[in-house]
């Protein structure tokens, strides 16, 4: 099971800040999330970065990034500050 952190307004859209999901890859995990939380959440999800254990999947294998039990996956909408 991977722990999925729904950050910022993703938590509001899903109604929860954290879920546990069994998925072999990031792609599979995204599909499960879209099915579970609906279209509006799915739309927001398309703008989110996916971070696995602190590393962006862009630097890993994108949707094919494998997930292991205990992995922490964060869904991060665009942010800025300074």
């Amino acid at each position, binding site marked *: 099971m991977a722990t999925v952190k729904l950050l910022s307004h993703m938590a509001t859209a899903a109604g929860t800040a954290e879920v546990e999901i069994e998925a072999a890859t990031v792609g599979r995990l*995204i599909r499960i999330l879209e099915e579970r939380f609906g279209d509006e959440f799915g739309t927001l999800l*398309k703008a989110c970065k996916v971070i696995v254990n602190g*590393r962006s999947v*862009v630097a890993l294998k994108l*949707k094919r990034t494998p997930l292991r039990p205990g992995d922490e996956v964060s869904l991060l909408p*665009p*942010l*800025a*500050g300074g």
Partner: protein
Amino acid sequence: MTSKLGGYMGKMLDVNLTTGKVENYWISDDDRQRFLGGKALAAKILWDELPPGVCPLSPENIMVFTTGPLTGTGAPCSARFNLSTKSVATGGIASSNCGGDLGIRLKQAGWDGLIVRGAAKQPTHLEIDGAKVRLRSARKLWGKNTEEVQAGLGRKVATAAIGQAGENLVRYAAIMVGERALGRTGVGAVMGQKKLKLITVTGGDHKVPASDETGLRESIRKWTAILKSHPTTGEQLPKYGTAGLLTGTNATKTLPTENFRKGSFKSWETISGEYMTENVLVKNSGCRACPIRCGRVVEYQKREIKGPEYETLGMLGPAIGNSSLEHVIEWNYLCDLYGLDTISTGGTLACAMELAERGLLKDDGLRFGNPEGISEMIRRIALREGIGNDLAEGAMRLAQKYGAPELAMHAKGLELAAYEPRGAVGHGLGYATANRGGCHLNGGYLVYLEALGPITMDPHTTKAKPELVVMQQNLMEAISACGSCIFTSYPVIPQLAPRWYNPHGLTAAAVDKVFQGLRFVLVSQGRLGPGALPIHPPFLPHTKALSALMGQNIHMGRFLAAGERGFVLERLFNLREGLVSADDSLPPRLTDELQDPSNPDSRVRLDVMLPRYYKVRDWDARGIPSERLLRKLGMEFALGMATRLRVDNSPHRARRMALRAREEESVQEQLKGARTAAPR
């Protein structure tokens, strides 16, 4: 000699506190076109007016307040103004940028800026009421905090005041502008040495002249729409403030934790922007003409006070192991009252905690995660009492004194802001090369392109990072120079429709490659000069607004060139004052130790990026701007100094080091006589 260009009032105010003389200071339209305003123009004034080798804490140092052409025009987020001086933290250039009302009030009073020279014998209040300028006694205000000093002056009076920290020459003393701060680089200490307790600006009904008023209004309308429709400036910043960023920095391991030992904090949720919004937020606040309104007003002990922004949360939160938002709010408020920079206060406390953990500094209360005694320590820093006197010197000098200089997380003597750069290595290069020291904004804020923004690239690769840092530094310098808030740069990276860009799909990989490939394009453009980009990009409305305002075609190429001039001149100022390429560095923790042992790229490879950065900038191997570059930018006035720096060799360098040592001695002399008593 007034200005033929729109956007300028035509003159600056020049006040000498030693002699009491008040004069006009004239700037040529040529300099206005080359440097625009803000920090870039201030660097030119410092270059012209400040002799090399002046002690930052001496009457010879000058303070240069500048607005930008857009300040006070009603353009979105254009309430900004800048203060530059010689830094008591780094010995190089100090620059600090601020919102609030002061810049707008200066222009309404008929001034493009203010130069303060000399030092008063007694505490002084500089009162600017339109064209009337008076120096009044501030003896009754000396020893008071910034809230007491600014209270009761009315909404039509803009203020800039120091607290006890500035009076006591704390190296990271701030100047409070209402509730906003000229926070970084110890500008409050320079004001304190001048015995200038308070500046007030009111009066006048001057309107900023615009060359094409209709064109300017149309640009402003479109610009506002862009800011409101972008996910960061239209949604995140209004909803959560800059504090909303903490969620992202924690997830991407760029949140400095326990003195930058780690990049994420296990108890982040209770100090996040979301938590603040849900639990203590009363309302948003913002500068005049700002559609973003990132400021927070929070409830604290049944009062409504300013809420902390991201940097403060990071540095008074995870950086010292604190997970209590209530404590951050309290300490933020105390720092504002005493007039202390919250970033440097947090960075210095974090350093002290690690020194204490290693048994090098004896103080039972200083422990990561222990909030007890922090309020009292902030007071002792501001008053330079006991061990607070050591902490008032900042992290670098504190760690040197206690025998572990490697534990100070700083660049050039300025404490790093709240981003752990091993999670975004280009951001680390920005810290190392920022002219004012460890600053995220002066450094180019690459973390936005690496980890946080709508489109990002691999945060750990070194490819294209030098090129992107240069581009971002020049862009942000230009935006700052024109009087705009840096936040207006965020829409440069647009939110693309999902069918065009999926941040976890193949398009993300493609964009990452495009970013990395930009290194060839950016270098070519940089070599061609200001004429190479005669365009007005829709995502950067500054250029069209400036063109309508000034009556000149300030296209992208000229805009970026103005930023580059400012950056290069600040660099030359630093070199002239004795800083060397070895100062473009970071603590070994960040360059040598892996943040994540399983990721060999999780350290800041300055050894790879810095030589390339110099090359992209057309600086030589010692970081000195080339003659070709200076001619390209029309900075022939700096050729002589650059040549002297280039032929410099070790004896010269030794002389410059000796100069810095002498400056330091002068500072220490000033500090001995500076302590004032203040009530608990």
